[in-house]
């Protein structure tokens, strides 16, 4: 590697090494702390019972169900649009003014703060389309979240499609397949792990989201009956319990569940990326 530096350089060297380990330590401290404080309050009852007193007591069952519905609905709307956009950009067009505009828009969208999405979702989905979405509802929340996770899905899927070797496309076309047959039967299956990674990262973002959902999803603690009812996600619940009821134990316990979900999501995404790389043995895909 490198020889040990001397004098002033030794100090800089140590700072670089220290920083590397500090990042690791911060992660461990935050996750460990939430875990230790919260794990004691996680029980079967906590997971399967309804909340009482605004969530200060009781369980989080409706919140878990609400989160699942919300994520499922978001993926259902966002995945086809996002993957479709990636296919268009990568397979159906050449780089030009239109793709530049689309890429610029996608990148810009990725940087918009969630509270702006919240304002937009409130004005558009909750108020203007209120007759259709029933105001604060799973549908309004999922539509808002779709706008937020779209860039993640588009970018990751595009990387995945790019990693599919050109030779496979040519082989298929040379056999007389149409463009769509080639994409549907060869390109998409080969790039699938990468596309799934994009969707999973999108799920991660949707689950972690709070600010935009406060303005669009409602926040009801009742079990949602349809996509036109409001609900709240785990992240929203954590915030509301911590800030409005002051019951930190319930907040930490919810935090533990959230962290477990985030860990699962990350491991799955990493596993799929490895699979994609092994399969196509091309350049690594990184976020």
């Amino acid at each position, binding site marked *: 590697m490198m020889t040990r530096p001397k004098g002033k350089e030794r100090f800089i060297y140590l700072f670089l090494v220290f920083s590397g380990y500090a990042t690791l330590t911060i992660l461990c401290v935050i996750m460990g702390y939430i875990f230790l404080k919260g794990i004691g309050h996680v029980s079967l009852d906590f997971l399967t019972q309804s909340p009482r007193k605004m969530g200060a007591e009781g369980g989080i069952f409706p919140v878990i169900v609400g989160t699942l519905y919300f994520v499922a609905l978001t993926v259902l709307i966002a995945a086809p649009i996002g993957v479709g956009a990636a296919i268009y950009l990568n397979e159906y067009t*050449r780089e030009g003014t239109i793709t530049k505009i689309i890429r610029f828009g996608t990148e810009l969208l990725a940087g918009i703060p969630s509270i702006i999405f919240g304002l937009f979702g409130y004005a558009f989905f909750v108020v203007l389309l209120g007759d259709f979405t029933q105001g604060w509802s799973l549908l309004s929340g999922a539509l808002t979240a779709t706008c937020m996770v779209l860039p993640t899905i588009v970018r990751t899927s595009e990387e995945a499609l790019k990693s599919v*070797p050109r*030779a*496979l*496309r*040519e*082989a*298929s*076309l*040379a*056999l*007389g*397949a*149409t463009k769509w*047959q080639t994409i549907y*039967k*060869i390109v998409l*299956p*080969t790039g699938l792990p990468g596309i799934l990674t994009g969707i999973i990262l999108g799920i991660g973002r949707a689950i972690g989201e709070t600010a935009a959902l406060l303005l669009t999803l409602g926040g009801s603690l009742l079990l949602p009956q349809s996509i036109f009812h409001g609900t709240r996600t785990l992240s929203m619940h954590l915030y509301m319990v911590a800030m409005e009821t002051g019951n930190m134990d319930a907040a930490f316990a919810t935090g533990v569940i959230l962290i477990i979900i985030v860990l699962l999501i990350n491991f799955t995404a990493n596993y799929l990326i490895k699979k994609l790389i092994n*399969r196509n043995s091309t350049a690594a895909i990184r976020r």
Partner: protein
Amino acid sequence: MPDNNNIKVFAEKLNLYYGHTQALKDINICIKEKEITALIGPSGCGKSTFLRTLNRMNDLIPFVTTAGTLLIDNQDINKPDVDVVALRKKVGMVFQSPNPFPMSIFENVAYGPKIHGIKDKDELSYLVLKSLKEAALWDEVKDQLNKSALSLSGGQQQRLCIARVLAVEPEILLMDEPTSALDPISTLRIEELLQELKKQFTIVIVTHNMQQAARVSHVTGFFLTGELLEYDLTENIFTKPQHKKTEDYITGRFG
């Protein structure tokens, strides 16, 4: 040049441009049915480009324009109303390095027939069997049709790719340096295979390997900087070439 009977491919003043760069200059060629035609020449001479005009694979590259006449079975394939899909079904292509799909051996061969609308299981199985036998691969893979195609050796993969093309029942086979990524033994097997296949198909093969061209083909074309410099019976090309540059190339003085 060959007489006018059973002409499969006919090109007259065929020109091709990548943007402003001319890649093919006034190509005139006449390829007869059920013969093997070898195209040789140094890298970048246009032989692969010419090959790819025959199944319109150059369409995939931006800013390619063609001019001139290119007839297959007396039909101009560069006309806008030509059905490219049907053309590519008729004109199969085998690529430089083996490119099997990441699926099972069976699925690879069945892919072509399936996209052309064959759903019947028995019909598919029959086509797979027939194609694998024609590609001289059947005996090696008959017990492992469900294994991934990627588990085969390079030479087997290339024969699988040939079988995959045969399964769509083409009339012309284009081969773009099909053995350049293979070991000598696999190369030999494919050359033997070509002798079998020429009984049924018109074959055009691009190769860097002069001995290969001499071994397998009836007719050889020598390309240089986008021009078809010399085109004659293989034995004439290799024994009494008309051009100094052809002689230099086949005797290995450049290229």
